[in-house]
């Protein structure tokens, strides 16, 4: 439905986008006892670390190969070798995930080749899986880094399995899902008697638990053995379009069919999900979900008064943009501005006239007169300048608590999000005054004048 345009300006202003390597690193953080490493200069890791710490409010395992000017030019094999050995010595991880950066990609480091040599030299590393993913900063965005890392993980670890385990299913979780979302999805799937392997599983590692001991690596998340056994599942549920290539990969390696759920936000989207689970499991839909569905329908009815005709401006990565814009459109809103970070097949389906691959300056320039802004915390300056209600969604959310538990899936999650957004509309409703219906004046601020101005 939407025309997708990539803006041609030389300077990005107030970036919406974040880089691939940290997207990849976050995916690795969804593995249990993992140490993600950025192959680059130390600053990239420091920035990624700070960003995730502020969002999740959790200790973040993330290392660097600490390249400098000289080692960059000579090639990074020694640094990678040392980094691996140091990490093994200090943290004893079950798996190491390495993401390249702009620096080492520009130089052209052949990390796959390096790893072969390193393995030859260090047979003691034989049992330690090391997954490398190419994630140049100057290409694509965070969501792509996440997707590429997951694809590499399954490529490398999933084992072919002629025999399937009847109730085992794979769940490939996109980067738009919070740890709270993963918990919710797991609960739903388990309620159908299915046993899910979630990859990556941030709900184990970044859900804010207080462990009894200190761990330098991730604590919780998908276990390496669980990833290996994904080939034994009867089906892969693809949550988010960007997880598709990983699903295809599992299919190639182990003949597991897949089904894509491009969003789990909204009534029909969840109906499809629940119906599918019922079919796969051969179990009727539990009463719990019939009730939740009914509550959602009721919330939609109660809420639609306040959503109808509202103009919304959204800045988000493609799959999150798709989910939230679809829900709002289904509630009667107009998606007046849609800005995203990277190209994706989902973009042209977004229920808006135009989708821009751009930045928050583009969003701000177009968002005047909108009733609601939705983007990550970096939208706060724009919201202040435009004096428009602002809902924080996406990553990073560094100026609010509970980002990791924010729910945006399921009947229950949809219901609560409708309430949250509806309350923003209610709290900012324009009350009629004596001048509301006065004839249009220059700079009039009454409701009538505003409506006419749009």
């Amino acid at each position, binding site marked *: 439905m939407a025309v997708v345009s990539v803006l041609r*300006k*030389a*300077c*990005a*202003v*107030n*970036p919406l*986008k*974040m*880089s691939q*390597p*940290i997207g990849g690193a976050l995916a690795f953080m969804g593995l249990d006892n993992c140490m993600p*490493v950025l192959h680059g*200069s*130390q*600053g*990239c890791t*420091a*920035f*990624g*670390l*700070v*960003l995730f*710490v*502020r969002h999740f*409010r*959790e*200790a973040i395992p993330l*290392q*660097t*190969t*600490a*390249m*400098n*000017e*000289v080692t*960059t030019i000579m090639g990074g094999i020694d*640094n*990678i070798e*040392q*980094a691996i*050995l*140091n*990490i093994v010595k*200090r943290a004893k991880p079950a798996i190491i995930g390495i993401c390249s*950066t*702009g*620096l080492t990609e*520009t*130089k052209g480091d052949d990390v796959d080749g390096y790893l072969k040599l390193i393995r030859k030299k260090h047979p003691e590393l034989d049992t330690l899986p090391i997954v490398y993913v190419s994630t*140049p*900063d*100057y*290409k694509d965005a965070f969501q792509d880094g996440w997707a590429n890392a997951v694809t590499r993980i399954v490529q490398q670890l999933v084992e072919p399995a002629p025999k399937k385990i009847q109730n085992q299913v794979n769940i490939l979780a996109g980067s738009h899902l919070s740890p709270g979302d993963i918990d919710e999805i797991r609960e739903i799937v388990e309620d159908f008697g299915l046993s899910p392997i979630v990859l990556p599983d941030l709900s184990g590692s970044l859900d804010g638990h*207080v*462990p009894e001991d*200190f761990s*330098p690596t991730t604590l919780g998340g998908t276990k390496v053995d669980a990833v290996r056994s994904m080939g034994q599942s009867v089906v892969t549920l693809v949550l988010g379009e960007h997880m598709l290539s990983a699903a295809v990969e599992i299919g190639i390696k182990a003949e597991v069919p897949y089904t894509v759920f491009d969003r789990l936000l909204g009534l029909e989207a969840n109906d499809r999900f629940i119906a599918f689970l019922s079919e796969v499991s051969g179990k009727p839909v539990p009463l719990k979900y019939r009730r939740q569905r009914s509550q959602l329908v009721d919330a939609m009815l109660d809420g639609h008064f306040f959503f109808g005709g509202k103009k919304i401006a959204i800045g988000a990565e493609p799959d999150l943009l798709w989910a939230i814009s679809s829900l709002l459109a289904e509630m009667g809103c107009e998606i007046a501005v849609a800005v995203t970070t990277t190209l994706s097949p989902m973009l042209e389906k977004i229920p808006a006239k135009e989708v821009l691959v751009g930045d928050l300056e583009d969003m701000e320039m177009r968002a005047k007169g909108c009733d609601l802004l939705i983007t990550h915390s*970096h939208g706060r*300056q724009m919201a202040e300048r435009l004096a428009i209600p602002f809902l924080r969604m996406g990553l990073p959310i560094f100026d609010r608590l509970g980002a990791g538990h924010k729910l945006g899936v399921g009947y229950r999650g949809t219901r609560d999000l409708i309430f949250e957004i509806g309350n923003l509309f209610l709290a900012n409703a324009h009350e009629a005054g004596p001048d509301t219906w006065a004839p249009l004046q220059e700079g009039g601020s009454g409701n009538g004048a505003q409506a006419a101005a749009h």
Partner: protein
Amino acid sequence: MAGLTTKVQEVFDEPGCDKNQGKSEKERKKGCTKQLQPGAAAGGCAFDGAKIALQPITDVAHLVHGPIACEGNSWDNRGAKSSGSRLYRTGFTTDINETDVVYGGEKRLFKAIKEILDKYDPPAVFVYQTCVTALIGDDIDALCKAASEKFGKPIIPVNAPGFVGSKNLGNKLAGEALLDHVIGTEEPEYTTPYDINIIGEYNLAGELWQVKPLLDELGVRILSCISGDARYHEVASSHRAKAAMMVCSKAMINIARKMDERYDIPFFEGSFYGISDMSDSLRQIAQLLVQKGAGPDLLERTENLIAREEARAWEMMAPYRERLAGKRVLLITGGVKSWSVVAALQEVGIEIVGTSVKKSTKEDKERIKELMGEDAHMFDDMTPREMYAMLKDARADIMLSGGRSQFIALKAKMPWLDINQERHHAYAGYDGMVALVREIDKALYNPVWEQARKPAPWEAAWQS
């Protein structure tokens, strides 16, 4: 990059920096690219350091030339406050793509500068070099020069790509950029015998404003703060100050020293943290100004103000002294701040059970030793696991550190206080010290600790 290499070397040979003078010729040659340990490093890059040092200049556009990583992952994440323009909080980056990597990013950079000037009309644009664009050979020095000529506005190259070294080196390279391209390029509207520069103060959480009213009261004018809450014009005309204070770190020693050399602006090294340090700093400012010709009555007025403020601060802290006496603090901070905070905390009877000196100079370490005694627990490189153990075993009551390590304390169910850049509270001057003590008290005595540490009832039953 030949120019840059020389610059790095030059900064490294900084005579004012005893850290380097202590090194042998060969060691010094190796420069700041002290080989970090791959897989066990944690600090920010030189670009990060340069940005920290200059971003507090509020009315200019800070344009980061590089791929999205450098600015996209980090913008608007620092706590420097402004009393005026907000432009410094706008994230500008060339966000270079694959084509730029292949064909060079200079064209895009030039256009980006033009776009910014057209749209935002700042008094200057600061252009930051980063790793990828340095590696492909984009010459930002030459480009900025050309752009300045073409657009008739100062376009300032900040040549501190991440991979040349640490944050600290970045601070210094940022200082060099100011010395080479900004300081001394404009004239102040007027000058007074009471004009000072404050160097190396970033106005985090508004800390400068805890100090400025006192200087105002004394009639001392901050001609330029480099760079907290600064305007471009102030920095550009800062060479007319009579004296300077360099805030307790070697990070910008090069600015202080070279301004002394070039413009005869004497400086001292001081700190606004802690009551006695604050008073010392005021005293030294007054002394330097009087030496340079300010009315000698300034000395007495300063003493009076110090007496009044100290009395007021001690009175405000009195209720906390008893509650905090003997409390044990683990202090993990970027070295330069260590001794200054150590002194401050000891003033209220807090015990420092350990401090990190990873980034401290020899002199810093000496001062810590002076303050904490010979057996001071100075950790060169404390691993998170060790910090955790120390807290978990209750060998410390609270940890003060930067945001990244807060969870080590919280997961050990021990209090923690942010004393780094992203902090929300201002701890400078007399009021700041009172605030710091109040925050420590709040953290230590918050009732959550008791509940959080208690096991669930069923687990308690198991244990007993």
